[in-house]
């Protein structure tokens, strides 16, 4: 009885698994380095997790509605390269910013149209889009990094440090996570997103415009990736044409670690954001423990597999 109650609680609050992992990791890392449990370390984790986390918000939202987006890593680079070019031409920040997000919205729209009208899996559409955009970026930069040659003070709204190691980007991440978590759990639209991913035929039979919901989410996923790219640009002032490679998979990993199902219909934005935070935590923790930073992706791999197994066990219907 007690056991099934615990189970019920975990299935209801899918974020519980990732919260336990975050605490578990904190215990291990603070044992290895006591300074791990400091405001400063926590703020650098949030800041490190921000770009991935903002991407994971969009990716998880789309995943819950039953579709994938593998092109977010390429959109991340494309948006920041476009913005850097425009800024170098002397175009005002706000215009460059909107143009970069607009480009991303167009990519999202294209992903949606190809997937929905062409009736092909979004895995294929966005894998193709990922390579296509990357190819265009490599060709148009000839493989060289694009440097921001002008000083753009307004860019500090994206990533300037505010307190300790906390950057504004960390705050943006938390605010966006809260907003989209709220949309998913507490608005009619959020209800439709869950239904569209969980049972598209049922959603359609109940009069929900499945194609529209998916299209909005494709655009959202792309725009969030662009925003993450712009944050990275404002932080480093330079973009490699290979920037963001692999980030799409980390965003999916964050979502799955946070309880999202690859099949759609299950998951929360809070879970995905915590998943991204966990990845940031591991990165900071390993550095503070003195381990070579290369270990981190191996760690994430193990974590992903464990999360996958746990999620499956929990979601199995009796």
């Amino acid at each position, binding site marked *: 009885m007690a056991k099934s109650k615990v189970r019920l609680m975990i299935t209801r609050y899918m974020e519980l698994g990732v919260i336990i992992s975050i605490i578990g990791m904190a215990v291990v890392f603070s044992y290895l380095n006591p300074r791990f449990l400091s405001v400063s370390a926590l703020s650098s984790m949030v800041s490190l997790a921000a770009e991935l986390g903002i991407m994971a918000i969009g990716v998880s939202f789309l995943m819950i509605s039953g579709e994938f987006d593998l092109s977010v890593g390429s959109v991340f680079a494309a948006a920041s390269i476009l913005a850097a070019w425009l800024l170098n031409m002397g175009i005002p920040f706000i215009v460059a910013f909107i143009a970069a997000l607009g480009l991303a919205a167009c990519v999202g729209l294209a992903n949606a149209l190809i997937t929905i009208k062409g009736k092909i899996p979004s895995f294929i559409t966005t894998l193709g889009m990922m390579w296509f955009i990357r190819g265009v970026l490599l060709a148009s930069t000839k493989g060289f990094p694009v440097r921001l040659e002008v000083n753009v003070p307004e860019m500090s709204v994206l990533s300037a440090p505010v307190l300790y190691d906390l950057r504004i980007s960390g705050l943006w991440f938390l605010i966006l996570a809260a907003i989209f978590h709220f949309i998913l759990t507490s608005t*009619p639209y959020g209800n439709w997103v869950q*239904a569209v991913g*969980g049972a598209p035929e*049922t*959603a359609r*039979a*109940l009069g929900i415009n499945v194609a529209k919901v998916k299209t909005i989410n494709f655009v959202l996923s792309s725009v969030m990736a662009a925003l993450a790219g712009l944050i990275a640009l404002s932080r480093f002032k330079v973009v490699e044409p290979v920037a963001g490679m692999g980030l799409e998979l980390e965003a999916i990993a964050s979502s799955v670690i946070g309880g999202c199902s690859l099949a759609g*219909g299950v998951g929360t934005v809070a879970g995905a954001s915590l998943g991204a935070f966990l990845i940031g935590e591991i990165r900071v923790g390993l550095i503070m423990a003195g381990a070579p930073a290369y270990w981190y992706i191996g760690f994430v791999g193990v974590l992903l597999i464990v999360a996958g197994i746990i999620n499956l066990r929990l979601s199995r219907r009796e």
Partner: protein
Amino acid sequence: MSKPRYLLELKGIVKRFGPIIALNNVDFHVGYSEVVGLVGDNGAGKSTLAKIIVGYHQPDEGKIIFEGREVRFRSPADARKLGIEIVYQDMALVPYMNVYRNLFLNREVYKKIGFIKVLDKKKMRELTKKLLEDIGIKRRDPEMIVGKMSGGERQSIAIARAVHFGAKLVILDEPTSALSIKESEKVLEYVLDLKKKGISSIVISHNIYHVYSVADRIVVLDHGVKVLDVPKDVATPEEIIDVIAHRLSPEEIQKRARG
């Protein structure tokens, strides 16, 4: 204005899927407070007909008249607005979502805060609790994940949802096929309850006996053509099965209805 003769009337419905003619010139009607049993073998066109009535498919030819007015449904949302609801055998509800989210799916109760629509979860939970009580489901937790409930409970919830939102015509697609005997009986009781409330229904099922226990009239489809449309008392369930299996000519029975 006098009441139209039928609640729903379909005239000369034709539906093609590529080269396949799923429905060929089908006339069909449902009266007020009437239960119509729609039967036929696999591929006879029962589900296609149902999906046309609820706006999921659009007919290639023919007319749909609901409450005396010709209607054209572009989507299930249009049909729902007029009070036509369908309860599918296993796709009536979203399994991963809880009861109250399912009950109010696409009909959410919300409050407007500025321009943002915020779900009124408290109200939805309360209404759900009442609804579950009304249909006699013992586990009355509106937060229960639907996938963890029994097939009978899910059917009952789906039917209750239709009634709650003021359905005038409820279509049940294979309502008992996945249920235990006891649960089937309960669901069939709900169908009779609908009739008492003045709600018409169409019951689609492979189980002729289940259909017989609730229907007023039986309609048999065969390869997209309506071959029989008679009050149920003119034929036995066994005869209907024989008609479906082509062991008995439908004209024989149709004659009885006329005579």
